């Protein structure tokens, strides 16, 4: 892991990479964490961002002087609205998520498996407290689900890109693409296909860092 020939993306870098792939006109929900940052890097296209609490058309974070205390995103952070925004109640907002109206949802995760399974809410089935939130709804409801996460765990460096998930699932077979600090991987019927990798990263290193098999172009 001491290979210095490449520099993993930081969290902003992952978000910026995702932003590149979102075309104008998409209707997008961004999960908490790295995904929330994606909108900061979509500056030259009209993309409409949705929050679970009923906001359609999230704008940039306001500066201190312009905070509206009645307006937050799904992470309860203060936001602004774009011109042309709309506000709905919680059931209507999740109707958007569950009814297939999101072109894209980007979630963080603990693990993604080559069959498209995602685990992002608990590290053990016996975990006494469970932080489900809206992830299960978004994962099954969006037209496409992308995941943004670090390729390996912080401590032991274990691969989060798995043959099978070891943690309790959020949903089965729903992930289309994973963006990590090292690579972009598509979930295909045959497994993870490498879309691209960061500069300087060798095939060998990525394979060492990845528990699942990789399909190279």
């Amino acid at each position, binding site marked *: 892991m001491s290979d210095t020939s490449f520099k993993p993306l930081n969290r902003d870098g992952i978000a910026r990479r995702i932003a590149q792939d979102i075309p*104008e*006109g998409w*209707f997008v929900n961004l999960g908490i964490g790295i995904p929330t940052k994606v909108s900061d890097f979509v500056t030259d296209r*009209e993309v*409409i961002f*949705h929050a679970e609490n009923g906001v*359609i*058309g999230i704008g940039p974070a306001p500066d201190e002087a312009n905070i509206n205390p009645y307006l937050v995103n799904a992470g309860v952070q203060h936001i602004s*609205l774009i*011109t*042309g*925004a*709309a*506000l*709905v109640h919680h*059931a209507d907002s*999740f*109707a*958007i*998520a*569950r*009814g*297939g*109206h999101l072109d894209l949802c980007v979630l963080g995760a603990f693990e993604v498996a080559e069959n498209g399974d995602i685990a992002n809410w608990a590290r053990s089935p016996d975990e006494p407290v469970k932080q489900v939130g809206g992830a299960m709804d978004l994962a099954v*409801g969006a037209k496409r689900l992308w995941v943004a996460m670090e390729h390996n765990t912080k401590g032991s460096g274990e691969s989060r890109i798995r043959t099978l998930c070891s943690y309790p699932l959020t949903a089965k077979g729903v992930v289309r693409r994973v963006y990590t600090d090292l690579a972009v991987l598509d979930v295909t019927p045959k497994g993870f296909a490498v879309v691209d990798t960061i500069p300087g990263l060798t095939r060998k290193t990525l394979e060492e860092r990845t528990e699942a098999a990789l399909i190279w172009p």
Partner: protein
Amino acid sequence: MIDKFVPSLADAMAGIQDGATVLVAGFGPGTPELLMQGLANSGARDLTLVMNAGGRDDGPVAELLATGAIRKLICSFVRPNSVAGRQFAAGTLDLEIVPQGTLAERIRAAGAGVQAFFTPTAADTILAEGRETRVINNRLCLLEYPIFGDVALIDAWQADRFGNLTHRDSARNFNPIMAMAAKLTIAQTAHAVDLGAIQPENVHTAGVFVQRVLHVPV
């Protein structure tokens, strides 16, 4: 730039396939009359029409049915003395009668990702014959499935280029829920307004549910 306005009725109606399920809003006011004419003229055949008032004879539904393009009608009532009533009697039109509230809820379910639901409405009537029922909380309930539209034709009072809509007074009726339930929602609007002219808190149908908007000044 996102701009859902289309320049003509032909553009609005482009691409409707034979065999499509078409949801048409309206309850008196709020009926997308021009779009219904567009559908009648589009040449699409073998359609399933979902429209509460499909069994009335006022308005353009008569014209639409008269083309023979409608194979099946899903609605809450049919008057014997209507085009639908006569076509049904002649055996040229399939008919599915759905209680009006169940109709609205099935359409909303399609838009909201609800795959089926149990309701007491009609559970102990002949409309439930041969269908799945279940007692829940001591009430007999009937299992109902969503009504998905390939296309929805809706009406609006105001629209902006994102497709955000308002509906005037009781012209709202089925418009917001049919917009949710279809893959392709086409709105005709009396007024085209600038982005921001509709207050975010007072959008009646959010643009996420609307794919095309045709400005039809009144």
